[in-house]
């Protein structure tokens, strides 16, 4: 197969775009498309300060690399979760992230759950009996809380995450199976800022997971290849596999599922109930972040359980 731009041997074939590219043109194409999506969805401008949430995985490091190459003011934040899995999962991913930042002279902020909150994520989950034996819900809760806290405390205009199209399609699939209207209406490339909440953006939301892996490999980005030990057998992975089976038979089905959903949502297919529209957020008296119910937020209540308050 030949590169559409230069006729040389292609390295990546994207059946959903009917486009094959060689290494050189693929490494140009990904940043060009990222720029296009940043503008199309009005994510941020070059005057704004971007905080990129990096995990040491292929997507978030690729995102940081692309934003840096495009000339955006993009710093990184890493959360040390304290997950070992018998092979030092978190410490290895932290090393890779720090190496990535140092090689490019980029600023990296590190939150360490054990240092800053006294317990790793698995221990927090165990101490609070949350998550049915798996720390994934505590992990998600803590990451959301800390990403927002850092973005606000350090004065960033926007928080960028490395969610790719497969991530978004899997969430959309799950929310559709459950007709979770309240979640469906909020899913999108941009979650606007609101009092106490930083703007969140997903510049990679139109790229297949396979495309981001190809970008990282071709760019020579060293990322944590091993899967999170707690992700094995997860519903997200199961849904991604199902969607990939569909994609194999119908190239482009994942992309159209997501893009047509966005169009339908913007066209008013989903609306909040009057109760949902009226529901106001409250401020957590402990950390100052917004919370859906009066009193402390879930993260602070979890910390209270751990400290025996």
């Amino acid at each position, binding site marked *: *197969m030949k590169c559409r731009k230069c006729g040389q041997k*292609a*390295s*990546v*074939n994207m059946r959903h775009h009917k486009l*094959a590219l060689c*290494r050189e043109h693929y490494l140009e194409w990904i940043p060009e498309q990222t720029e296009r999506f940043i503008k199309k969805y009005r994510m941020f401008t070059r005057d704004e300060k971007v905080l990129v949430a990096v*995990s*040491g*995985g*292929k*997507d*978030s490091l690729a995102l940081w690399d692309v934003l840096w190459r495009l000339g955006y003011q993009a710093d990184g934040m890493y959360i040390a*979760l304290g*997950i070992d899995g018998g092979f030092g*999962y*978190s410490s*290895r*991913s*932290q090393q890779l992230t720090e190496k990535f930042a140092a090689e490019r002279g980029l600023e990296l902020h590190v939150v360490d759950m054990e240092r800053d909150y006294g317990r790793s994520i698995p221990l927090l989950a165990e101490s609070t009996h949350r998550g049915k034996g798996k720390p*994934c819900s505590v*992990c998600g809760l803590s*990451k959301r809380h800390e990403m927002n806290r850092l973005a606000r405390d350090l004065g960033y205009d926007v928080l960028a995450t490395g969610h790719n199209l*497969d991530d978004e399609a899997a969430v959309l699939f799950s929310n559709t199976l459950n007709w979770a209207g309240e979640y469906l209406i909020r899913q999108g490339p941009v979650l606007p800022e609101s009092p106490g909440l930083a703007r969140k953006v997903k510049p990679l939301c139109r790229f297949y*997971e*396979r495309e*981001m*892996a*190809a970008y990282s*490999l*071709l760019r020579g980005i060293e990322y*944590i*290849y091993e*899967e*999170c030990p*707690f*992700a094995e057998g*997860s519903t*997200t*992975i199961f849904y*991604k*596999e199902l969607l*990939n*089976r569909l*994609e*194999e038979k119908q190239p482009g089905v994942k992309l159209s599922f997501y893009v047509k959903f966005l169009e339908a949502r913007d066209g008013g297919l989903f609306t909040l109930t009057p109760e949902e529209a009226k529901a106001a957020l409250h401020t957590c008296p402990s950390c100052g972040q917004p919370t859906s119910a009066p009193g402390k937020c879930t993260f602070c209540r979890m910390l209270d359980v751990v400290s025996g308050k």
Partner: protein
Amino acid sequence: MAVKLTLRNREFEVRPGMTLHSALEKLDILPESVLATRGGELILEDEILRDGDEVVLVAVISGGGA
């Protein structure tokens, strides 16, 4: 001789002369879920696998965050 493919800790062998796509189908591996490299270079699904080739498959699906 044969063609050797590895995916994480698993090793597979197929006959030379088939395309990468046919090999993945035979092994029940979804092409959409992996990238294939040979000698450090990405190869595409229409690539004919030759005797003695060693193909490393890179899993691309992830479900967690470090």
